[in-house]
């Protein structure tokens, strides 16, 4: 009898000790994780990107599941397949990436054409030959923006010398065409559309202060950034080799009482994120494809149409802003395009910009009416207001990456909270 009581007392003490240990351990872990999070916050993005890529890659890995083949070999096979696809894709894309000479030509052409179109719009005349009232209004609003674009597109001294070398025939390349040289000369005389404001404190033009970083610092930062981003493929590879061990490890840490609950919550979360991410990827692909096909029909060269389609498709992952960015890219090209012959009969090549606006509109409409309900139908629904707030908050915290990851984060948090509360109630824990 006494032994039984002793055992009960010892058990009670052990349980108290265990509780104290758990609380202390939880506190220490929270502090350490918080400290690491604060100190290593720059690693969050590469880790997230690597983890998300591994998550998206999982179905491909599952395809190679052969019962008699060792797991590591299966993963290596799937990596080899992805590597091959990427190698051919990269090789294909590389041929379309402009080289040094083409980049110079593009910059010169872009600056010339943009200024030409800007002048046309600002100096547009009505039917009676009088200047419209709209011109000065546009000039007032768009002038500073045009100045910034011109500043960005200006060739620096080295680039100008290189351009002239290529004009004369450099590195056995054919000389730059006459029309680009004419654009180059014309660009040199492009004036600013707004007077340059001087900073009274420094007596320096405001624009000149835009970049204070020295080349050495930029190089060092670039190296640091590269080192940090090396983490993404590493995370991708390690998670690719994971055969459920990570999940089993985390589930192993969960107290018995919450074992089935945690399995259900993790599974629902995994399902929701998977559906959302794969759905978004498919939606982006469909939007990109629509834009690519549309642009090819408008007579834009295939390589350019594919490039615009890919970029617009990728940025389509950012709700609202994706379409705007796609429109800007498409419109930017439409404004500088030359010798375009639309494949659709009856279209006027001079109105390419209008057709691009219509095309982006159609793609956006298709996305909202067909692609989203079809592809993302069963995925998590997020209120538009939450989407807006999340995107703005994301952009304030992490810029473009923040905007890109804002919605997936909202989806994860929303699903986690909803599922957790539902399951906690079902399991009669709360």
């Amino acid at each position, binding site marked *: 009898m006494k032994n039984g009581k002793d055992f009960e007392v010892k058990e009670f003490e052990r349980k108290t000790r265990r509780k104290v240990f758990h609380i202390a351990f939880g506190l220490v872990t929270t502090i350490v994780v918080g400290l690491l999070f604060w100190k290593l916050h720059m690693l969050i993005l590469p880790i997230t990107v690597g983890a998300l890529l591994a998550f998206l890659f999982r179905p491909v890995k*599952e395809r190679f599941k052969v*019962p008699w083949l060792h797991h590591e070999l299966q993963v290596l096979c799937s990596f080899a397949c992805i590597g091959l696809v990427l190698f051919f894709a990269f090789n294909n894309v590389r041929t379309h990436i402009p080289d040094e000479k083409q980049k110079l030509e593009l910059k010169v052409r872009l600056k010339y054409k943009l200024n030409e179109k800007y002048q046309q719009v600002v100096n547009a005349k009505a039917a009676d030959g009088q200047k419209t009232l709209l011109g000065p209004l546009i000039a007032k609003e768009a002038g500073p923006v045009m100045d910034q674009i011109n500043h960005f597109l200006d060739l620096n001294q080295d680039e100008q010398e290189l351009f002239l070398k290529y004009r004369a025939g450099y590195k056995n390349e054919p000389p730059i065409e006459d029309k680009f040289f004419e654009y180059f000369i014309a660009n040199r005389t492009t004036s600013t559309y707004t007077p340059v404001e001087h900073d009274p404190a420094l007596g320096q033009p405001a624009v000149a202060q835009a970049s204070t970083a020295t080349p050495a610092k930029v190089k060092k930062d670039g190296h640091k950034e590269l080192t940090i981003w090396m983490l993404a493929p590493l995370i991708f590879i390690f998670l690719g080799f994971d055969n*459920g061990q990570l999940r089993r490890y985390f589930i192993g840490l969960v107290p*018995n009482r919450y074992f*089935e609950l945690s399995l*259900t919550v993790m*599974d629902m979360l995994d399902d929701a994120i998977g559906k959302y991410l794969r759905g978004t990827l498919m939606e982006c692909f469909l939007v990109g494809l629509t834009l690519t096909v549309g642009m090819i029909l408008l007579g834009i060269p295939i390589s350019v149409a594919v490039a615009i389609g890919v970029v617009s498709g990728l940025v389509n992952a950012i709700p609202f802003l994706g379409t705007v960015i796609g429109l800007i890219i498409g419109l930017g090209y439409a404004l500088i395009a030359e010798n375009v012959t639309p494949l659709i009969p009856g279209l006027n090549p001079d109105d390419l910009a209008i057709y691009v606006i219509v095309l982006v509109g159609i793609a956006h409409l298709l996305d909202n009416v067909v692609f989203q309900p079809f592809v993302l139908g069963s995925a998590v629904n997020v209120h538009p207001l939450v989407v807006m707030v999340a995107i703005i908050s994301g952009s304030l915290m992490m810029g473009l990456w923040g905007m890109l990851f804002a919605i997936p984060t909202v989806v994860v948090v929303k699903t986690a909270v909803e599922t957790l509360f539902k399951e906690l109630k079902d399991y009669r824990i709360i």
Partner: protein
Amino acid sequence: MSMRKVVADKLLWETLKRWKRSSPETDRLQFLQSVPFFNELTNWQLKSVSEIIFERSYDANELIFEEGQPGAAWFLIMHGKVSVEIYREKYTARLATLEKGAFFGEMALLDESPRSASARALEPTRTLALYRNDLNRLIEKDPQTACQIYRALARIVGDRLRSTNELVQNETEKVAA
């Protein structure tokens, strides 16, 4: 080759084999092989089942699951004793006491219906747990294995239904007499 070297090699291999034999994964595989529920599965199939199974340890008197909770996993006793009970306002009825090699909570593999009884460890117990959705996913990855597990499950559920029918029949006859 000298006799001494041969003996040393043999010793090395024996040690390596013993070390391999005693790993938790091998222990789990050996245990699964000994369970009649899995007797139709080959070693490869057992390995893929072992990859999706969770090991859980319970203290004496600790609840494994409660009656009325949504069922999500099936449990197989690796070591220890488990009591299957139902709690009512005035009494607690022990439906069965299960030991090593026995399993419980099998209905959770079929649907999300609430647990019909509670399971409590009577002594320190180690179990293997198979989560329903992991088995569902196994249908896509390894349909043959999943099919064999479901067939074994159907056989067990059928047996239990048959014995319940017999019990009900006996009780009805007793009442009628």
